[in-house]
């Protein structure tokens, strides 16, 4: 195992995952639309978004879910496996604002020979509101 690889033994409940920071922009919205195939104008047309009762053009929810996956895969390294991830969209992130993905370890356990770690994860806007709270389960290698 590489010395940089996170192992099950490194984990403590309450431990924080290194945050993932995303400075959102209209270009990012356009790139996501092209990459995902979701061209809903609420993510790039401010006037339309306002007609849809949003405060402004907003960051795509699936993009935020994808960033949360990235938060986890960056952390667990090549030998960790993302087993499960979910989030609910509770608030909006305005295009142009910074979205920060964060997480904290809530549980660690071994089951059927697998070393698993559960985390509370979320995306946060500059006002500290958790706009996409969720959970993730990862498998980590063990040094034992």
């Amino acid at each position: 195992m590489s010395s940089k690889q996170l192992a099950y033994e490194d984990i403590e409940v309450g431990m924080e995952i290194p945050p993932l920071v995303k400075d959102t922009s209209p270009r990012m919205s356009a790139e996501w639309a092209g990459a995902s195939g979701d061209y809903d104008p609420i993510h790039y047309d401010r006037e339309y978004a306002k007609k849809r009762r949003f405060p402004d053009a907003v960051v795509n929810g699936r993009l935020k879910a994808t960033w949360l996956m990235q938060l986890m895969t960056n952390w667990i390294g090549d030998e960790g496996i993302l087993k499960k991830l979910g989030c609910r969209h509770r608030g909006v992130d305005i295009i142009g604002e910074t979205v920060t993905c964060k997480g904290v370890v809530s549980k660690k356990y071994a089951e059927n020979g697998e070393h698993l770690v559960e985390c509370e994860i979320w995306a946060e806007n500059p006002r500290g509101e958790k706009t996409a709270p969720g959970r993730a389960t990862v498998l980590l290698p063990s040094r034992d």
Partner: protein
Amino acid sequence: MAEESLITEEMRKAVGSLVNIAVTEIESGAIKRFCKATEDANPLWQDEEYARKTSYGGTIVPSGYLITMQMEGESPGFYMPYQLSLKGAIDAGGEWEFFRPVRPGDVIVVDRKFVDIYQKKGSLGNMLFNEFETTYRNQRGEIVAKGRWTSIRVEAPEVEDYEGVKIERGEIKR
């Protein structure tokens, strides 16, 4: 006073049905665009030489790419299983489980099942919550991932109202 139900007989009948099946061949150009759009520089997704030295023995597909298949909006192959009275879609979130790595060149078959519908009133007015289950299989028929997610339908202006552009007699007018 009882709220007016927006849930039609057609909607109720559609619950439990397999809505559609979409086939996607994992293509490296699409992965490249996905990684660029999400600013994901993990070498496991794109650097073949690097990935060969890992236990995967080659690049694998980022999990997030799978969840772009069969999402609402303008995604190819997506349609709603009933007549829409509410035109706007909002993603309420979901949960995904990943069972096996997916690699470039794999052919992923996603089937989408419509599993529940319910109504609520909120800040965006009348909302219809549609729940879907997706199952992802590879070309060997192995289940690589599963998802369950909720799409909310809300009232929205017609396309011609929001695009702000009308085409009349070949001219574009704002």
